[in-house]
């Protein structure tokens, strides 16, 4: 597609429920990143995909968080047994390659609110 698409744009859930956030990157972009942005704070790196593999998942905060990418395209970030501290905007970005010189194109984000 023309840009990075994320869904849902807003998600309100109850504590303890599982949620899935979806990212559809720009066609042809091999690198995909997930970031988390808590209210009033900067971006916190979660995970990086090159193709379908995740060579860097060092930012996932706990084993409740997981992500996968299929077909070198769509990625899903799953949060199990959500907690209130998981409330944040989850941003997905893609780039042509994983080089640190590549420009990231960001989606509009998925705002997660855990009650």
């Amino acid at each position, binding site marked *: 597609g023309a840009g990075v698409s994320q869904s849902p744009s807003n998600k309100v859930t109850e504590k303890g429920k599982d949620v899935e956030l979806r990212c559809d990157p720009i066609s042809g972009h091999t690198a995909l990143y997930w970031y988390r942005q808590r209210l009033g704070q900067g971006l916190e790196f979660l995970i990086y995909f090159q193709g379908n593999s995740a060579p860097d998942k060092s930012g996932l905060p706990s084993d409740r968080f997981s992500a996968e990418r299929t077909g070198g395209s769509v990625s899903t970030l799953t949060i199990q047994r959500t907690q209130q501290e998981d409330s944040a905007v989850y941003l997905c970005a893609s780039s042509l390659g*994983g080089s*640190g*010189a590549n420009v990231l194109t960001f989606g*509009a984000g998925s705002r997660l609110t855990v009650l």
Partner: protein
Amino acid sequence: AQSVTQLDSHVSVSEGTPVLLRCNYSSSYSPSLFWYVQHPNKGLQLLLKYTSAATLVKGINGFEAEFKKSETSFHLTKPSAHMSDAAEYFCVVGGKGGYNKLIFGAGTRLAVHP
């Protein structure tokens, strides 16, 4: 290891006056550096990037940044602020070849007053 520090969490200027948003970085190798802007309720947008060509980088909307290796700085400037410049600005450090995780600064919120 890489890190980036944005020295001001909030900057307030009057319309028509210069803007200076300060950023210092730490990197064990020659970095790539970026500034991204986030307007309220909008996605992040690239302002400019430095990848070892000219040390003075010009971006969109009249912004520019100068890479100073001796000072490990990459400050963002604009000669004359406009009301539409009010936003959150992020300084970002990355590597060159191969995979390098991009590290975002904590952000600087720019307010522009009439």
